[in-house]
């Protein structure tokens, strides 16, 4: 165990520079922060402030130029390629703004894909459960081009959560969706959070950020502010998780039933 706390994520003086021709773009210029289990964090900031850069590093999709990224007290920079692949597959569920589904395979197969690389058992059962959670079981055998934007994003979320990751990272998950559909997506995150899931969401929109209980604002590659808010969605202390999920997030079926 390293310095002081037992955080899930810890960034220490993180820098990321991009080389564009002869110029160097400093996308992150010394970010330090810590995120704990079951936090529900919104990352905000102007375009170009470094949000995606930071998320990519958090998701082990990119490596920092300088500084440390500790995931469960483990310095990610020291890990081998295959260990990194394992982390990407098992510990992190990444949700992209543009969904990034395999276009030629069904929703169900898409959801199974990370588990395939992670060699998990019960792939089908887990995938079905994940699709049920996002209320999309009736579209399990549809291909992405047969789904709406919101449905695609829900498939992507199911894919991110099927292998029960430690963290779900979502980079502008509602960026390509209208505000109504965006809110539906956020309600799914709300319910996942209520079940104990750690979630980090990048967004431009205040009403999306309002779902979260902590907002970190970036500006020019630095943390400008980091504020905690009262929890809008209380973590219900006692009843079973499934009950909460149902109570908090009315999935599609409920909406139709009403």
């Amino acid at each position, binding site marked *: 165990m390293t310095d002081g706390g037992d955080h899930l994520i810890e960034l220490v003086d993180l820098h990321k520079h991009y080389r564009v021709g002869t110029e160097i773009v400093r996308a992150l210029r010394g970010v330090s922060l810590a995120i704990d289990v079951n936090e529900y964090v919104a990352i905000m900031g102007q375009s170009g402030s470094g949000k995606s850069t930071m998320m*990519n590093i958090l*998701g*082990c*999709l*990119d*490596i920092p130029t300088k500084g440390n990224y500790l995931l469960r007290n483990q310095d990610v920079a020291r890990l081998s*390629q*295959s260990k990194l*692949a*394992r982390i*990407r*597959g*098992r510990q992190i569920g*990444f949700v*992209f703004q543009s969904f*990034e589904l*395999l276009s*030629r*395979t069904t929703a169900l197969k898409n959801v199974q*894909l*990370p588990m*395939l*690389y*992670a*060699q998990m058992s019960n792939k089908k059962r887990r995938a079905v459960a994940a699709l049920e959670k996002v209320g999309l079981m009736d579209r399990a055998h549809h291909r992405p081009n047969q789904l709406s934007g919101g449905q695609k994003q829900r498939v992507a979320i199911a*894919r991110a959560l099927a292998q029960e990751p430690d963290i779900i990272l979502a980079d502008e998950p509602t960026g390509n969706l209208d505000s109504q559909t965006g809110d539906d997506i956020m309600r799914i995150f709300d319910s996942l959070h209520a079940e104990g899931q750690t979630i980090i969401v990048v967004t431009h929109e205040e009403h999306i950020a309002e779902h979260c209980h902590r907002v970190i604002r970036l500006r020019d590659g630095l943390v400008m502010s980091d504020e905690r808010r009262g929890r809008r969605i209380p973590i219900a202390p006692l009843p079973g998780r499934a009950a909460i999920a149902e109570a908090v997030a009315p999935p599609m079926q409920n909406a139709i039933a009403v």
Partner: protein
Amino acid sequence: MRFHPINIVRRPFRWAVSAASRNAQNVATAAVQIWANKGRSVLTTLGIVIAVTSIITVISVVQGFGNYMTNMVRGYGTSFIVVHPWYEGERHGHGMREPTLDIHDITAVRGECPDVRRITPFVFTHNAVVSYGREKAEEIPIRGVAEEYQLIRNFPADAGRFFGPVDVDNAEPVAVLGRTLLTLLECDESIIGDYIYIDDTRFLVVGLLAEKGSFGDGDQDKTIMIPYTRSIRMYPDRTRSMSFLAEATDEDHIDAAYAQIQRTLRQRHGLTVEQPDDFYIERQDQSLQSFEEIRNISSGILGGIVSISLLVGGIGIMNMMLVSVTERTAEIGLRKSIGARRRDILLQFLTEAVVLCTFGGLIGVALGYGLSKLASMHPSMVPAEVPWWAVAAALGCSAGTGIVFGVIPAFKAAILNPIDALRHE
């Protein structure tokens, strides 16, 4: 270093199991990809199909032709030696010299060479005129031989009989006809027992030679055999170039027979050590050997040409794989983002390449097989044969091409940073 025996035993086992399941998965993924890109897959495969088809066809035809030639040469008999009455390198000895071989040489060889089993003089006349009733055939080669010739050269009579030693001793005017003569003289087997005229001498037809077919340009059945004693009488000038054929006791004794004949003749001709042979001994097994050599060389050259076509097919595959990787860089990025290792990506693309190539290879083998069968159906074509090693080589080559040319783009894809791949344009 400490050893953990249990780990040592368990690990490879677990690895093998997981590798097997991954490979199965990879083949499935590859199959899905290939199916999803039907058009492109077909085009890629086409290169390999053409390459393999040409390999199989060329090899089978060469092989078939080679077999045909070998059988032909073997059919001539390979354990005999021809002794010519000219110096080595001299062509047909039409010099002004006295003839160097006579019938006494032959008698001496027969008597003194234990490894010579059979021997026959050979007096050849190129173009006799043959007539039968009102039919007439010109430019017929006449072979004046002893009765043993039919055994040495494998020229049995399959109707009537060959002439015998008595016919030879008495220089009887008897003839054995090749089958082509029947056509030329417009008659059938009933000619046996009838008379024909060869250059105005009357001959009794005693038999017909079994059919031999043609070899190159020469029709082996367009010939007449008569006792050499009669030839000498009819064509005294041909006696100059009388040669003889000697058959060794078996193929392993050709060397011994050769040496014995050489010694006997040199002795008889009174040659000193410095003087070269005044005769020339030609070995048939040598021509078989040099023929095999030619066949191997031409196979090699054709093999080279064929490898080039395989290379071209391989470059097609490599190109396709590069395009496919570039096209699908985002997909690779996504796969890596959700936990695919470099190895998984590499394996996926490799499998795709190998499956494509093997598929193309199989189609190519089938097509090549069909083509060579088709070629065999042409009347003047020898039966082509597809040797198993050609199939193995073609399939191996095509799968190998897939691996070699799949590795480069697959590796290129596998080492990409996930986010760079995902954002690649």
